[in-house]
């Protein structure tokens, strides 16, 4: 039995230790905001926070997260930072098909928490592990820039 914290709640699972955190989140806990893109750590669609650090849930065997604090996109939705990112992405037109967006928002939130006023280069670096096949990234970069200005330290 593996026990950990998921979006603030203590949870347990008897899934095998090698199960991917991504599958556990989507299939067992029905948190389907976290997406599977490549399944190889190259696209960032499955990004979550593990002890407040951005990580790819497709690469995490759940046996390694016993006792850890996991947050998914569903877990940050009530935060002020999320609200500002949400608004900024829509103003900048940062969302088209939307599949990459939960991962993009997680990467954006991780970046802004660490570096509240990033340069454009730092924004691009912050989302460098996240692929978007619609926007060409410029609108996403603009959205994060906007959120940094509005959030001013959030």
């Amino acid at each position, binding site marked *: 039995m593996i026990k950990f914290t998921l979006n603030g709640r203590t949870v347990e699972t008897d*899934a*095998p*230790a*090698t*199960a*991917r955190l991504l*599958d556990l989140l989507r*299939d067992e806990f029905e948190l389907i905001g976290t997406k*599977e893109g490549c*399944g*190889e*750590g*190259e696209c*960032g669609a499955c*990004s979550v926070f*593990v002890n407040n*650090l*951005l*990580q*790819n849930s*497709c*690469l*995490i*065997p759940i*046996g*390694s997260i*016993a006792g850890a604090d996991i947050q998914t996109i569903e877990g940050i939705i009530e935060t002020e930072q999320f609200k500002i990112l949400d608004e900024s992405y829509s103003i900048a037109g940062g969302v088209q098909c939307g599949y990459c967006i939960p991962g993009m928002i997680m*990467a954006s939130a*991780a*970046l802004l928490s660490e570096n509240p006023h990033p340069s454009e280069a730092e924004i691009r*670096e*912050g989302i*460098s*592990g*996240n692929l978007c096949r619609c926007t060409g990234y410029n609108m996403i970069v603009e959205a994060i820039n906007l959120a940094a200005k509005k959030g001013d330290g959030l």
Partner: protein
Amino acid sequence: MIEKITAYRFERLDETLSQLNREDCAIIAGGTDVMVLHKSRRGVPPKIPKPIVFINHLSELKQVYQHHKDLHIGACCTYSELLENPLIPFALKNAIKTIAAPAIRNRGTLGGNICNASPAGDMLPLLYVYNAKLLLRSVNGDRMVAISDFIQGPRQVQRFHNEMVTEIILPFVLGDSHVVFEKVGNRNADTIAKVSFAGFVRISKDRIDDIRFAFGAVGPTMVRSIDIEKKLIGKTIPLADADIAEIVAAFDKIIRPIDDQRSTAAYRKTVALHLLRYFLSMKQYQPN
């Protein structure tokens, strides 16, 4: 039907080593390579053919310290942890910034990158030019091995099943050195190298005291030649065109890349030699 999977996660290193002594296990640090290597279809756990031992929570494997001026790096330090550690050389940090992306740097470990022994392993060219040594620990004690002896071929390392790489040791370098790392891939982030190159040079009074090169992704393991390096010792900077041509020609003979899904042998060789020529043609080398 759920297959039975045996996995261990001990609180201490000594308990982990005892388990390795009892049983041949797959060691998982960050898991960023092993989870891809054994990937199944969606919803199905990766099929890892041995019992599993998780180690990336062990604090004994996350220490970074200096001992007799050598730098000791715990095998389970993630790339992000290395970027934040004041003891890690700037040249290494600059290289790490070009590897993967934030999410993988928060998970992938230096020891994992070495033990995965990929011909394209990102940190390997640098560790070769730093003459890195590895500390292997088992219930029977410690042994030290040079990284170039440890890595035998693609995914082949010289590790007995009861041993674990616990530290990576960068020997002390006397004086100022200039170190470069270049990686060529399809994308800046999260990419597997088509070619990689590390160069190391130490100059005193315009003469080369020490020079080292290692090429990645152009052979089964890193390509390094101490014989070729020796030809440059004592030469004056900037190097003469004839010297540069001689060194490039010597590597042209020993670099034998292959065609695969990421690149072609011809491209890899051309780029590897260009990177070498560029490094040798620098007018001056600033210590970093």
